[in-house]
């Protein structure tokens, strides 16, 4: 009972107090001090624990894989080696040390950026295989993509001088209207969910156990 009620009460009180704070004039000093303390000192500390718990969960997962020698456990050893390496250069020479900067530049940057650059190949392949003008609406999509792709590169102006301006018009008028329509829908959804959380209707964050 207490295990579920207390978090619900905390969520409600926290939510209502913060909504009220929004309407308190900025000239009210105690309210400002309270909010500054909360956002600049309390929440970052608690946030750091969230981050550390996330990291610890990942370590636990890979440790279990190694301990039980599950399929691909050797790769988990590599993950641990990566963590250990970064920690050694980071804590050994400090955050401002050259070794951490070098490790960042020569290990982290190439791995991270190459991982995402692979998408260029698959996107080209998908454009060739799946981007078909089967219906009128699909054709509109295709034609718009065509114009935008041409309008943002050098060839665009060779074909038609007005193409960049026309592309800008697509972005600022029909595209903007579409994005706004969806954005308004998302906002209404977020508002409904926020209210459900504050009033304890949405309580999936409590988990299923008592």
């Amino acid at each position, binding site marked *: 009972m207490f295990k579920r009620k207390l978090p619900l009460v905390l969520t409600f009180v926290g939510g209502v107090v913060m909504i009220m704070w929004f309407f308190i004039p900025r000239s009210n000093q105690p309210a400002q001090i309270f909010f500054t303390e909360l956002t600049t000192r309390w929440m970052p500390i608690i946030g750091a624990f*969230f981050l550390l718990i996330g990291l610890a969960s990942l370590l636990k997962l890979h440790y279990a894989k190694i301990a039980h020698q599950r399929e691909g456990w050797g790769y988990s050893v590599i993950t641990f080696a990566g963590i250990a390496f970064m920690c050694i250069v980071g804590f050994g020479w*400090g955050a401002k040390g050259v070794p951490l900067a*070098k490790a960042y530049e020569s290990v982290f940057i190439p791995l991270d950026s*190459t991982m995402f650059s692979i998408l260029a190949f698959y996107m080209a392949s998908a454009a060739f295989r799946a981007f078909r003008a089967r219906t009128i609406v699909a054709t509109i999509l295709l034609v718009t993509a065509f114009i935008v792709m041409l309008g943002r590169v050098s060839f665009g102006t060779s074909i038609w001088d007005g193409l960049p301006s026309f592309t800008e018009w697509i972005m600022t008028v029909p595209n903007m209207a579409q994005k706004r329509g969806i954005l308004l829908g998302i906002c209404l959804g977020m508002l409904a969910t926020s209210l459900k959380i504050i009033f304890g209707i949405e309580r999936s964050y409590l988990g299923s156990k008592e």
Partner: protein
Amino acid sequence: MATDIYVWIAALLTLSIYSFLYKDNPLYKAAEHLFVGASVGYSIVITYYQAVLPRLINPIFQEGDWVMIFPTLIGFLMVSRFFPKYDWLSRITIAFMLGISTGINLPLIIQASLLKQLQGTMLPMTDINSILIVIGVLCVMIYFFFSSEHKGIVNTTSKIGILFIMVGFGASFGYTVMARISLLIGRLEFLFGDWIHLIKY
């Protein structure tokens, strides 16, 4: 060809990832796991030096700011997630952060996104662009309105809505192509410039 050992390490890691283009292989998997490890390790170091040390350890132990023990305790309750018998304690921390964040965000969503965006749509219908924006926003919203059957006027407007949606998606696709190609350019520039010096600046 580069003589710098760091450039060689970066180049070999880059090639390991690209080996996936041929087919999935152990070299790619090893690089992928190294990436996860390196990113976690880097996060640990930065979080310690930038958050834990100046916010937690220094204020409490050097400056004697004992008030900071309270948020520390609230945060520390999250550790209970690793002990099934006591994991309900972590709900207190989650509830505290969730309640406050939701309370802060709720009026901001209304003001920053909802009201401002509605205001931006209330345009004087004096030129074609304003008319198109108003029609577009309304029709797109009606397209996603599923509380009544799409018949009659609702059907017509939602059909106009789908046209705007396709233009928007087309624009997003065009831009996505642009983005993905840019990322590839960056890597090839490194491999053929910094590593094997084929690209000259």
